[in-house]
């Protein structure tokens, strides 16, 4: 068993979450996986003209951790995600991914984003959309396998417009996973889906995260979704982190769990500014 972990960096081995998941993964005999990377946001502020959208944000995400950023719409949570993605540069402070400071240019290697809408290229078939991050036959074969993983192998030759919203978001997930990202950023990817499809997608995201061990940062306004998926929920309000909740609950997490429901209620109360 231990030989399997030899190639992992030592500090990762010490992380209880990473070790737990690696064991689970090894039990399933599904081969080596790409471990997650750390994200460090230090003293970050972001201004658009006169309005300050983010004030002095500090957030450290451990490798392999699943963090949810929760808040009202317009609280700056999507902006924070775009800063981590390198799509925007912070006005103050800095963002480091895997120990390297971002200088505004998107870091295409390790980071993948799942956007609010799937952003598939309508003129490429599903398989070619999933394979967009690379070229060559080997890459396409990998994309096909990933499509199978998200349950869309039979849709590989379809045009995106013929898919449902949930299926499109699955293709987007496959597209992100093909390159085995070490950091997956999720910008309210399930916001536009119906309730049942959303639960299915949450299950799928949790499953691939557990199997592949990447770091995940999810931006959402859905408290139940945040509590169900995340190790840690960060509540953002008017551009500041106002609360952080650790959720140490065994996975896979069942739906309608009473303990999770209590945490959800507490966060909801905080968001609605009602003190318990």
């Amino acid at each position, binding site marked *: 068993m231990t030989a399997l972990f030899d190639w992992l960096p030592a500090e990762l081995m010490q992380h209880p979450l990473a070790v737990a998941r690696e064991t689970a993964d090894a039990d399933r005999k599904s081969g080596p996986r790409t471990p997650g990377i750390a994200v460090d946001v230090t003293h970050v502020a972001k201004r658009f003209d006169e309005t300050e959208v983010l004030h002095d944000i500090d957030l450290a995400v451990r490798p392999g951790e699943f963090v949810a950023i929760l808040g009202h719409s317009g609280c700056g949570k999507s902006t924070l995600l775009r800063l981590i*993605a390198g*799509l925007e540069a912070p006005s103050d402070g800095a963002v480091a991914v895997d120990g390297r400071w971002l200088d505004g240019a*998107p870091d*295409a*290697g390790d*980071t*993948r*984003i799942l*956007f609010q*809408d799937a*952003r598939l*290229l*309508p*003129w*490429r*078939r599903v398989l070619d959309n999933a394979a*967009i*991050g690379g070229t060559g036959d080997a890459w396409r074969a990998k994309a096909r396998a990933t499509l199978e993983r998200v349950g869309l192998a039979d849709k590989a030759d*379809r*045009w*995106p*417009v*013929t898919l449902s919203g949930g299926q499109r978001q699955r293709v987007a997930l496959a*597209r992100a996973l093909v*390159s085995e990202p070490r950091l997956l950023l999720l910008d309210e990817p399930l916001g536009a889906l119906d309730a049942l499809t959303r639960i299915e997608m949450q299950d799928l995201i949790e499953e691939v995260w557990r199997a592949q061990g990447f770091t995940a940062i999810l931006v959402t306004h859905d408290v139940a979704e945040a509590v169900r998926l995340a190790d840690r929920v960060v509540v953002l309000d008017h551009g500041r982190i106002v609360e952080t909740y650790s959720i140490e609950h065994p996975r896979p997490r069942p739906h309608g769990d009473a303990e999770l429901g209590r945490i959800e209620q507490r966060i909801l109360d905080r968001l609605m500014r009602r003190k318990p």
Partner: protein
Amino acid sequence: MSRPKRKRLGGGLVPWLLPVLLIVVWQGAATAGWIATRVLPAPLDVLAAAWKLIGTGELWQDVLVSSGRAAAGFAVGGGIGFALGILNGSSRGAARLLDSSLQMLRNIPHLALIPLVILWFGIDESAKLFLVALGVFFPIYLNTYHGVRTVDPQLIEMARVYGLSRRRVFFEVVLPGALPSILVGLRYGLGITWLTLIVAETISASSGIGYLTMNAREFLQTDVVVLGILIYAALGKLADGGARLLERRWLAWHPSFQAEFVR
């Protein structure tokens, strides 16, 4: 079971009913002597004229010359329009420098330049080429420019996040995204090509369909004149059909073409 079949068969024929009726009435009226042959020749006479001209090889010669001019003018004007549309669509600086000047030129009707063009080029091939190219330039330029400008910026951002090079972003995101608009420009441009060519050939030419009809006019051969008009119509329709075929092939992904592609 036979009902839907009959319906479909009838449906296919309906659009042809009126044209066929018109030709029959036309032929009847001409045979009965109600229309003077000098005003409008009978359809059969037009056919006979076509047969004669095909026999002498004259018709092919003229069709070839006219099509060559159309193709050359379209290639030059369309090529420049496409290149400038792409340039201005992708570079704000270039657009600021060039676009307003081009928009000013656009308001000059290109056929109004004919006297000037004859002074510049004589009644040479280059005069016709210039006019056609000028006419084709604007629809292609405008639609390419508009197409590139309206490509969804979110898709471009996605492509950047997924590490696509600038080259790949252009060929795999910008160009296909602009293609529906470019093809609209193509169809407009083809229409203008033939229109311009008809005018240019009618005014000054020593070969081509326009020359054929103007020559026939001198000898009061109305059948040849009508034949020339019909050939222009057929060539225009053929070009438009080609453009639609391209649309079908290249825009198979487009929602408006999806009905027949959903399996």
